[in-house]
């Protein structure tokens, strides 16, 4: 089943800012280094499109540095298992690789948190971050009426980009209230002065866009696709006709690979020591999986991990102060944009929670724990393996996901099983 074996001193799983920074520093110190990404792209979600366009300064610098570092970049490489200590099983279009490592950096990023509400399954209801990424790869928005709703600083950045892509942004609806946001805003000059400059840049492009705080979507309406959205503010509900509803309620770390490797995860975040090393010796973690903090935190943590692996303790230590600042920013962001209880309770009895298996809220509400609900309803057993409904179920019912079992991402297997083909037959993807 293994087509090829590759051996490295250092492997970074995930080619976003954290993985790139760690891989650069490891490779530059002379270690044989590889960086893997499940997508065809390098740069992660945040730098999507930067390989070709090179418009962001930080992205350009790090992508150039990666090219010059000597690290081997392996694209479309999905980690599906860790069959033994020091090795990963990796699925690529060319076949299955066994990649062995002496030090591993988990830089697996985060995914958007979605909360179910009536109509959220309609085509045209899209993740804010997801739509932003797709717009960078050609998704058409010219002339589309779009409502941006949910929570977090991303809503601003996304709205500005959607407008640049030609969309008519009708409203940005932020569920957090103004006093909380004001406190968050006041922490910026101390914690992240660069963000203020960014925000000022967005402001110019956001001129004329309505921004409402204490406002959130309660229902998306439409026959075969979204045609309108109902939003609530205070005790009032109003309707906006739209072509696209971009929603996102923040991000949550991708926990599958850290869990598979046995790393300690607390409150959804991977625990690391000062050197970014996890509870498993030789396995490091950097960026979003240790706590949502965006590009700055990811780069600093990736650099610390890279220096630590290269044996450059002093150089790593010089970054500790900057890291503390980015972590304080993460905490301020979590407080400022904490989700109100109302938005966690938008699902009605008939609202679908698990989109893969079409399991409604009322089916899940019959059970006392996640495990029985899963076994009885198949909630979380479809192709996404609970990656979408898992966050929602935790918010609504307080059920924690099971520990990860391989395969972490059963793309081929799931595809073959669901399509009714014989799982023993050769995969059509690898002719």
């Amino acid at each position, binding site marked *: 089943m293994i087509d090829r074996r590759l051996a490295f001193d250092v492997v970074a799983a995930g080619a976003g800012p954290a993985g790139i920074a760690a891989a650069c520093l490891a490779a530059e110190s002379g270690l044989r280094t590889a960086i893997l990404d*499940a*997508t*065809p792209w390098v740069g992660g*979600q945040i730098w999507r499109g930067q390989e*070709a366009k090179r418009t962001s300064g930080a992205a350009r610098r790090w992508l150039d540095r990666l090219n010059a570092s000597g690290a081997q970049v392996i694209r479309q490489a999905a980690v599906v298992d860790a069959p033994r200590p020091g090795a990963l099983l990796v699925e690529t279009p060319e076949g299955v690789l066994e990649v062995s490592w002496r030090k591993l950096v988990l830089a697996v990023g985060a*995914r*958007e948190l*979605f909360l179910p509400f009536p109509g959220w*399954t*309609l*085509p*045209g*209801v*899209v*993740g804010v*971050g*997801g*739509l*932003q*990424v*797709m717009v960078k*790869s*050609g*998704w*058409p928005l010219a002339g589309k009426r779009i409502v941006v709703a949910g929570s977090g600083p991303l809503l601003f950045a996304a709205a500005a980009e959607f407008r640049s892509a030609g969309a008519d942004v009708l409203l940005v609806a932020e569920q957090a209230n103004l006093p909380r946001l004001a406190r968050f805003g006041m922490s910026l000059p101390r914690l992240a002065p660069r963000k203020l400059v960014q925000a000022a840049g967005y402001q110019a492009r956001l001129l004329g866009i309505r921004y409402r705080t204490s406002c959130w979507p309660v229902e998306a309406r439409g026959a*075969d*696709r979204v045609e309108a959205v109902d939003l609530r503010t205070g005790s009032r509900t109003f309707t906006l006709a739209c072509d696209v509803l971009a929603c996102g309620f923040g991000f949550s770390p991708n926990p599958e690979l850290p869990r598979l490797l046995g790393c300690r995860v607390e409150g959804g975040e991977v625990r690391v020591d000062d050197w970014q090393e996890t509870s498993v010796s030789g396995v490091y973690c950097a960026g979003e999986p240790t706590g949502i903090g965006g590009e700055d935190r990811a780069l600093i943590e990736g650099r610390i991990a890279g220096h630590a692996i290269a044996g450059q303790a002093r150089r790593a230590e010089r970054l500790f102060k900057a890291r503390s600042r980015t972590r304080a920013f993460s905490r301020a962001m979590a407080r400022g944009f904490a989700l109100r209880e109302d938005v966690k309770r938008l699902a009605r009895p008939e609202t*679908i929670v698990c*989109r*893969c*298996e*079409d399991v409604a809220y009322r089916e899940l509400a019959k059970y006392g724990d996640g495990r029985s609900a899963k076994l009885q309803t198949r909630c979380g057993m*479809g*192709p*996404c393996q609970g*990656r*979408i409904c898992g966050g929602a179920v935790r918010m609504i019912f307080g059920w924690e996901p099971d520990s990860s079992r391989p395969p972490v991402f059963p*793309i081929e297997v*799931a*595809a073959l099983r*669901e*399509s009714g083909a014989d799982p023993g037959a050769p995969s*059509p*993807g690898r002719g």
Partner: protein
Amino acid sequence: MPDTVTILVNGREVRVPAGTILAAALARAGESRFRRSVSGEPRGPLCGMGVCFECRVTVDGRPYVRSCQTVCEEGMEVRTDD
């Protein structure tokens, strides 16, 4: 590399700039329903990051291809109605 690529969407020719992801090409072709759910509901892309599988389509006879993670290639045959 040529500036555009042509793909077939449910038998119809669609031309898009090179480097366009398949999900975006389908949207440009006016498709909003990428698949039907197990209970028959129309579905389209949600996460845009390869996680949710809502954007999956059939490409050259191969099912379960996530269109948000696939770059258009010349002559690809895509079906959203399987």
